[in-house]
């Protein structure tokens, strides 16, 4: 019961936020938090719940971003049409990447995903049809509402909120289904899970594909809001790391972990940039780096684990010491 009360309060706050803090920059910050929360929650499905630390999720993010901008720049359609297109491409790609790489353990899986992401970035950088290094632009002067190019961040905010709720619902539903049960078993010990009859490979692949689809949506939304994608901002490895860090900081494998991570890191980044960035002394990143280090040092399971009693999460991600 208490759970539901708190859920209602959070929902009410989330809905009221852009009306209470209504300056354009605050609204945009809110929208950005939600956007990164979507991406980090999507990553959480495979990185947190399945324990497969993908550092190449930007590939799927890029699928969505390029599909959205491509449908406008190449076909003159609303970027919205890119969302289903991006999902299809991302899921297909996830299957192609996932089958060979998901059998790799721990660090090798992470490295393989980095290699895939970098390969994709290099290919797109050299593909003229995808704008090569120049990138693709969206509609700067919207033709109609479906071009999703707004002056105010308010429409983006509520759109992102809706998508985040759907993402979290899917995640919640998944964790309570048979698939979630398998995933937890696999994360604890893949060998044990297999011997108990859990279809480990298939489950991991499904989780990977689901995660890819949702990540692609976040990429499409990102590109629509900024009206632009290029290889660095759509496929750069730093975006993968950023998504991963948000989830890990809030608490990977926890439903609200990524949201908490995004709600801390996005404002931290933007506000420290606003205050310190113009001085040009690199202090933004000194502060940013120091905070991340401190959290990793004192709260390795993520901030939310502080409250959930999973402080010493022993569910290592397949990369820990041999017992």
């Amino acid at each position: 019961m208490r759970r539901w009360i708190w859920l209602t309060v959070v929902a009410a706050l989330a809905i009221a936020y852009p009306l209470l803090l209504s300056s354009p920059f605050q609204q945009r910050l809110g929208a950005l938090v939600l956007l990164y929360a979507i991406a980090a929650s999507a990553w959480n499905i495979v990185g947190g719940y399945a324990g497969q630390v993908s550092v190449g999720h930007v590939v799927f993010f890029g699928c969505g971003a390029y599909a959205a901008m491509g449908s406008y720049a190449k076909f003159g359609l609303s970027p919205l049409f890119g969302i289903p297109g991006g999902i299809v491409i991302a899921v297909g790609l996830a299957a192609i990447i996932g089958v060979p790489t998901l059998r790799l353990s721990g660090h090798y899986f992470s490295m393989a995903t980095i290699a895939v992401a970098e390969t994709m970035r290099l290919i797109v950088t050299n593909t003229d049809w995808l704008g090569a290094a120049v990138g693709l632009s969206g509609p700067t002067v919207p033709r109609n509402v479906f071009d999703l190019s707004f002056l105010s961040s308010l429409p983006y905010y509520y759109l992102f909120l809706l998508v985040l709720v759907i993402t979290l619902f899917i995640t919640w539903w998944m964790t309570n289904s048979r698939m979630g049960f398998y995933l937890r078993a696999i994360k604890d010990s893949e060998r044990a899970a297999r011997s108990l009859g859990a279809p480990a490979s298939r489950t991991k692949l499904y989780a990977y594909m689901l995660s890819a689809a949702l990540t692609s949506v976040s990429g499409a939304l990102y590109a629509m809001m900024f009206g632009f994608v290029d290889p660095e901002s759509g496929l750069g490895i730093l975006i993968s790391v950023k998504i991963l860090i948000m989830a890990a900081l809030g608490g990977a494998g926890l439903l609200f972990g990524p949201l908490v991570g995004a709600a801390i890191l996005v404002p931290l980044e933007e506000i420290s940039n606003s205050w310190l960035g113009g001085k040009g002394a690199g202090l933004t990143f000194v502060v940013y780096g120091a905070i991340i280090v401190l959290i990793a040092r004192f709260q390795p399971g993520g901030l939310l684990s502080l409250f959930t009693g999973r402080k010493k999460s022993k569910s290592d991600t397949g990369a820990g010491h041999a017992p």
Partner: protein
Amino acid sequence: MSFVLVQVIVGGLLLGAVYALFSSGLTLVWGMMNIVNFAHGDFVMLGMYVAYVVYTLMGGGPILGAPLATLVLATVGVVVYFALIRDIMKGPMLAQILGTFGLALLLRYSVFWWFGANFLSMPPNIVGGTYAFAGLRIEASRLLAGVVALLVTLGLHLLLTRTSLGSKMLAVAEDQTAAQLMGIRPDTMQAIAWAIAAGATGLAGALIANFFYIVPTVGETLGIVAFVTVSLGGFGSVPGALVAGLLIGVIESLSGYLIGAIYKDIVVYVLFLLFLWFRPQGLMGKA
């Protein structure tokens, strides 16, 4: 034509040796402690800046800069181990990525804050010019780095396989609890491993500084090369890193010359992925 190819291959081998040199530290901690050090490239960067500071303050080339960079970075390694690594090792792999990535930003932008963003460079020919053998040209500074790479690899390999310190370190890597029961202190061993790894990385940075440019963000460029080298060689395998480094160097050089440089990284990554498919434990990693 074929003569140019020889130059390309020789250049690639020397480049590969440099890759191996700055990857050996990464493979050591990665293999021994299962730590993914995202700040590795920035350790190389620190080594480069130490060498540069030594040069501007005291003059002198790598003879002074390299040992000092080794010492300074070894100290940094120990400090980082006790302040951060010891604790995040106990957490999940994600905490390690989080911690070392934060450390990377912290190091990179502390240097940025202190030295500014300008590109720095050692004076040309600080090690001695370029040797020409029958038209084949080899830069002295690269040759020095290549030779040191071989020595460091050999040294680390012997240390791990032939000395009691090495056996103790491997014992800790294998099974901490058992090692502890045998009277080995895991903390000490791992701190030593970090000192060695960071020291080797600092040495690499100081030697690379002789022919590369120096800038706070240089670690980003070098870090990813080290990651690929180490994964290809097998985590924890020092000889593996050498072979992988040489292989990558030659592939990059050859593909850059033959099919265009913008594709050379793609070739390396695709090869790496294919390799993982057939041999998931890396070139010389244990199955």
